[in-house]
């Protein structure tokens, strides 16, 4: 549909020549009249001139800067850097594959200065909690069964949360944002301490200090301040809810619960145990308070058994069940 009304190459060429003539010192009143006549002669000419105008508009904007000449020269230098890099690399890299179009193929060069990256992977086993010092002084704690990928470069400090949960305490570096990625979205730390947990098709964020900006894959956006938590999916961000420091206590090997259903607590404990942990539905709704050693879940189970009307059935080393206490016998 757009094609039919596009000006021909010839019209574009004429318009460009008019532009070059009219801006030169040589142009006189006669030239300007002839140009007007050319414009009046065809819609196509006016359309072609429209492109001269749209190109010129960008240069006009440049003229509105406080120091147009200085800005222009800086821009030229920036382009120079791009070209030098492109040229230097062109000779090093053999380009394989078909071209998009002729003008695209010669751009086919990687950017070595950007590839100077530190890449590392960290992983914890089930039941393991580990603290890692990152190269910039930030610290990250990996909760049980967690994997992250670290990619630091000149512009960003990026961690990808592949599975599990992490607590991050970022070191300040105003020039290099700290970013955590999950499949659902991207979190940008604004000077901060926060936990991120992957849960199936969603990710959870709790902010303990500072603030964190969320941008989901679909473009939803929000800023979560300290003391708030939320859950986000590929498509959106849930309303913010209050959070507290209990949610980062795991980093110290402690699980703090307050008014939590036993069912929910067992769900948590399962993350730290590789065997089967069963729960009788009749006791799932009991409420639990207290803090428990997460690095020793057997001890936690015994503590629960002493506080609640339950008993721990150890059928096999890898098979433990929580049952209601046998009727008084």
């Amino acid at each position: 549909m757009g094609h039919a009304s596009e000006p021909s190459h010839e019209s574009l060429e004429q318009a460009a020549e008019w532009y070059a003539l009219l801006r030169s010192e040589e142009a006189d009143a006669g030239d300007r009249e002839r140009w007007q006549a050319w414009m009046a002669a065809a819609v196509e000419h006016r359309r072609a001139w429209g492109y001269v105008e749209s190109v010129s508009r960008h240069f006009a904007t440049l003229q509105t800067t406080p120091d147009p000449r200085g800005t222009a020269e800086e821009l030229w230098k920036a382009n120079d850097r791009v070209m030098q890099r492109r040229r230097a690399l062109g000779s090093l890299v053999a380009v394989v594959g078909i071209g998009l179009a002729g003008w695209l193929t010669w751009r086919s060069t990687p950017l070595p200065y950007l590839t100077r990256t530190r890449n590392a992977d960290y992983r914890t086993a089930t039941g393991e909690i580990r603290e890692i010092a990152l190269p910039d002084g930030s610290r990250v704690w990996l909760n049980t069964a967690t994997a992250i990928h670290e990619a630091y470069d000149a512009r960003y400090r990026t961690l990808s949360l592949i599975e599990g949960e992490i607590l991050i305490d970022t070191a300040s570096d105003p020039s290099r944002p700290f970013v955590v990625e999950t499949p659902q979205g991207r979190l940008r730390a604004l000077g901060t301490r926060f936990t991120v947990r992957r849960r199936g098709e969603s990710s959870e964020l709790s902010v303990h200090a500072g603030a964190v900006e969320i941008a989901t894959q679909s473009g939803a956006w929000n800023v979560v301040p300290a003391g708030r938590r939320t859950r986000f999916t590929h498509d959106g961000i849930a309303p913010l809810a209050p959070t507290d420091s209990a949610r980062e206590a795991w980093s110290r090997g402690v699980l703090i619960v307050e008014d939590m259903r036993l069912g929910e607590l067992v769900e948590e404990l399962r993350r730290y145990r590789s065997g089967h942990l069963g729960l009788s539905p009749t006791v799932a709704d009991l409420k639990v308070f207290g803090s428990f050693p997460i690095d020793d879940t057997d001890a936690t189970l015994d503590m629960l058994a002493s506080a609640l009307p339950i008993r721990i059935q150890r059928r096999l080393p890898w098979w433990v069940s929580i049952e209601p206490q046998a009727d008084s016998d």
Partner: protein
Amino acid sequence: MQTLGATAPTISIETVYGQHHDWLRSWLCRRLGNASDAADLAHDAFLRLMLKPASRGFASHGEARGYLRTMANGMCINLWRRREVERAWLDTLAARPQEHAPSAERQAMILEALNEISAMLLELPPKAARAFFLAAACQLTDREAAEELGISPRMVRKYVARGMLRCMQLQARETLDALHGTD
């Protein structure tokens, strides 16, 4: 079994996506050294491919990869160029007293214009680029530009016309792309 086909079977974009998205992403990640940029560009690359499929389709997965790689390379350069431009603009701003700084909206507009200009200049042959730059960006007369370049004013005018034409073609292409939903 299919060796006799005269026309190679083409591969659908869904298949290309399924088979090559992860590869493209890690390929970009190696080049850019940054997982989030890589994810962005890989996403954009497939978006472009969906909106504006390769005219002949892909006969083989090797060809699909070649195409993606070429496209992704262009996108890498472009990303990098935008960052250079941004840096240049911030450097210019930093060199000026704070109170003369344009408003944030104004700055965004200026940065966009600078990006357009930068992209256009990069498409020009070096001599035409400099002549066009001196004329259009620095507002030198043909005579002043000629002096700086050591060529005749007539030649400057020729370069300016050529530079403008190339820029107009790029604008025309962008307009077409916008009409067809790319960008």
